[in-house]
């Protein structure tokens, strides 16, 4: 079976049950949009799906194998969290270059320049990231989506700090990815617009 499948997930944080026996699946060419109020466990769920944290009960399967034992999951996944994962002392180029090396993606420096260019960061490539605005930093972080060819994208609040153009730009990237047969799971505060294409919604409730 292809795609991602979650079965019977339970997550207990600070001795509060965030969700119990949660199951869903994500097939190639699908966008799963996760919705819920603050504290409902959206981030916790996304982190469990990436394998960063483990569920108290339940399991995530990627192409039929649990992600804990899967050899291919790390290669097929891009996760971008709340935090941009950019070291503030390094430049955008250096940050992306080292990130690509860590994830064993072969990219030439010229490719990184190109990606930064199409993402509207011309002239900002070589200065330490701490001098960029929050929105520009977010764009640098999102540039990873162009660098690594991975079918599974898990993005936590990717629109944070982006301007209107930026939001549209990212939504178009989403729909392109999904059309190519990619899988995308994301969450955001504002609803997705038509640019992002079709999507299924998963609602999480706040529980006491």
């Amino acid at each position: 079976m292809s795609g991602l499948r979650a079965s019977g997930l339970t997550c207990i944080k600070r001795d509060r049950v965030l969700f119990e026996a949660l199951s869903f699946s994500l097939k190639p060419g699908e966008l799963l949009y996760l919705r819920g109020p603050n504290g409902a466990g959206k981030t916790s769920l996304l982190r469990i799906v990436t394998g960063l944290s483990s569920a108290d009960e339940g399991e995530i399967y990627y192409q039929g194998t649990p992600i804990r034992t899967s050899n291919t999951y790390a290669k097929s996944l891009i996760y971008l969290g709340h935090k941009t994962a950019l070291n503030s002392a390094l430049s955008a180029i250096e940050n992306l270059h080292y990130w690509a090396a860590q994830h064993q993606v072969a990219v030439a420096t010229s490719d990184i320049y190109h990606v930064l260019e199409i993402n509207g960061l011309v002239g900002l490539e070589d200065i330490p990231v701490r001098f960029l605005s929050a929105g520009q930093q977010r764009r640098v972080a999102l540039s990873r989506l162009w660098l690594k060819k991975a079918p599974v994208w898990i993005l936590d609040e990717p629109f944070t700090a982006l301007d209107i153009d930026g939001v549209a730009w990212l939504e178009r990237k989403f729909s392109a990815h999904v059309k190519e047969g990619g899988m995308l799971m994301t969450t955001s505060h504002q609803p997705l617009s038509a640019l992002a294409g079709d999507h299924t919604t998963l609602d999480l409730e706040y529980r006491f």
Partner: protein
Amino acid sequence: MWKWLHPYAKTENAYQLCLTLQPWLWVGALACLLIGSVWGLAFAPQDYQQGDSFRIIYIHVPSAILSMSTYVAMAVAALVGMVWQWRTAYMAMIAMAPVGAVMTFIALFTGAAWGKPMWGAWWVWDARLTSELILLFLYIGVIALYGTFEDKQQGGKAAGIMALVGVINVPIIHYSVEWWNTLHQGATISKFDNPSIAPEMLWPLLVNLLGFALFIAAVTTVRLRNEIIVREMHRPWVVKLAQKGEK
């Protein structure tokens, strides 16, 4: 054996087990402590060198031995929690920590009090006292680490790792301190170097040792029950339990 033990990984079952064991542990602990202490303090013969002051061993020795064992027990609980992912094991570890720390403190206090007539000073950098002191520091580290975490589940895991790091270190610390002591002080007469202890003195000591062990177990079960209830406050079974109590 694991089949038998496994149900207790569930907090509710562990709670019930604590409840069942508790009266037996308390009765056993009180009986042993009463018999051992009265026997040791009133009926065991005097030491020919130290007179009556040796009788402090009936408290000092059990607490010192059990302060070490409690730390090892914590590390075992942490390992069980880590390998089988039992939340209850971490809770048990945390329940034991302050009990062990108090035992260590009792051992230090009685050791110091005993030092006064023996060495003429309240504190001497004797090897055993020093390693007890460091053990107390290790306990404080584990308790402080757990206390700093707001997410108690995460805190339990973190404290568990620290307990394991500590337990690897306990023998190293013990031998290094002993070796440091012989290097710096020459041969101090160690308190327990007497090659043998008369059986009339030994028996009450053993009874008290058992009493202390049961006492630690009893306090631990109380604390574990408490920990489970506080941590699982919102779980249905706890709510049901509380409603039953109200009626």
